């Protein structure tokens, strides 16, 4: 299979990206409008994150076998919509599983369509941050009804189902990738460690200026734009160079993150490695993109745990985020040993 035409790739990535926003928005909205504030909130949060992140590993392995990624993404959106009929822990479980199914299905499809490029992956992953942010805000305020969400999710599910029908099968994994070789496990471990660190940083750090109205939105823009820009930068300058220089700049800027401008720039640069790690791990496991995707989201779950259990370095947000960026740099450098991204 020579791979889909460029226009088809652009359309698919655009639809998947919008659906990504819708799914993450819906999940955050549901969790914060239905479960937040109840006595089971913490347990529901843990279960939701387990289902949404950790379950992507087995689901990813299943996706590699089935090879019907658009259908899996469509099923995920339907399940997320169905969670609106529930409440409490069942909602957390169903929304989490729906989220996991969508991410694996859509993510693997985008990964396979993008071939050797990182940019489509960066574009696909970036709207999730907006979805979670706005879903959380609207969920807490109770300022939205469920109907538009259900209709929106159903529309996306239909489009993704159509992707599956028109393509008949999902995109085949690229054949020209070389396996990671003897060091695969070690390289993979290094890249997963970067994801754990980024997840911990993303969940945990709160700079004082982030609570202000314009800067909170700007911080989310920095996260989303950073993820998207990372893919383009990697395609232009190479994964290693993009990672080393952006993380070094992010580390230094984090030390001055008490000032909003420096903090925003640091967040933007720090998030650039997101699609690079994704592509880096996928390249280590040719033909097993679902497994690679799931492995990294398992890393996201591991990074969430210290935040959930209240583990704090005691060094303050600036120094801790500096350490996160500084530690990620050599991990990325050595993890991307066989640079193909």
């Amino acid at each position, binding site marked *: 299979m020579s791979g889909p035409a460029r226009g088809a790739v652009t359309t698919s990535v655009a639809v998947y990206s919008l659906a990504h926003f819708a799914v993450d928005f819906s999940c955050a909205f549901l969790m914060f409008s239905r479960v937040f504030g109840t006595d089971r909130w913490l347990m529901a949060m843990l279960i939701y994150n387990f289902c949404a992140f950790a379950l992507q590993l087995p689901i990813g392995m299943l996706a590699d076998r089935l090879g019907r990624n658009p259908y899996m993404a469509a099923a995920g959106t339907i399940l997320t919509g169905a969670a609106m009929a529930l409440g409490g822990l069942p909602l957390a479980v169903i929304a989490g599983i729906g989220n996991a199914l969508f991410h694996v299905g859509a993510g693997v499809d985008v990964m396979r369509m993008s071939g050797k490029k990182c940019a489509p992956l960066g574009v696909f992953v970036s709207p999730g941050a907006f979805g979670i942010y706005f879903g959380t805000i609207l969920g807490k305020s109770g300022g939205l009804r469920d109907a538009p969400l259900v209709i929106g999710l159903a529309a996306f599910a239909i489009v993704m189902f159509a992707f599956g029908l028109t393509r008949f099968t999902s995109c085949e994994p690229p054949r020209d990738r070389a396996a990671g070789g003897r060091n695969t496990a070690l390289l993979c471990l290094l890249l997963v460690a970067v994801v754990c660190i980024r997840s911990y940083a993303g969940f945990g750090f709160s700079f004082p200026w982030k609570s202000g109205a314009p800067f909170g939105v700007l911080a989310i823009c920095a996260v989303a734009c950073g993820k998207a820009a990372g893919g383009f930068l990697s395609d232009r300058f190479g994964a290693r160079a993009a990672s*080393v*220089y952006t*993380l*070094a700049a992010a*580390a*230094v800027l984090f*030390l*001055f993150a008490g000032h909003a401008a420096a903090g925003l720039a640091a967040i933007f640069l720090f998030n650039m490695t997101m699609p690079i790690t994704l592509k880096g791990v996928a390249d280590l496991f040719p033909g097993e993109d679902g497994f690679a995707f799931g492995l990294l989201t398992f890393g996201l779950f591991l990074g969430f745990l210290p935040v959930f259990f209240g583990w704090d370095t005691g*060094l*303050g947000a*600036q*120094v801790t985020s*500096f*350490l996160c960026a*500084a*530690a990620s*740099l*050599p991990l990325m*450098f050595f993890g991307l040993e066989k640079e193909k991204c």
Partner: protein
Amino acid sequence: MLTAFAVSLGLTLLIELDAALVYGVRSRFDLLITCLVNVITNPLAVLAYLLLRRYTGLGPWAIKLPVEALVLLSETLLFRRYAETVKKPLLYAAVLNTASFLIGEVINRLN
């Protein structure tokens, strides 16, 4: 005391390894040499600083600057002798030590 040594060495290794990668060093051997050189010089520098602070009436900067100069000199000599791909050992040592010194100062002020 041991914690201070460990934190200083860990932070220095992290910062100087990052700085080496930004500087453009790609040889694994040279990156290893960079770490080993710091394992030698950093604890000695910290020890010298702590002892001089305790037993002389000198201010912190009056001790830091000569100690850093000695570190720079010794690291330059070690890089010149052992590093394989580093073309300008003095510049390399100066970049790495300036990075770790400045970042260390900022971190000290933040805590």
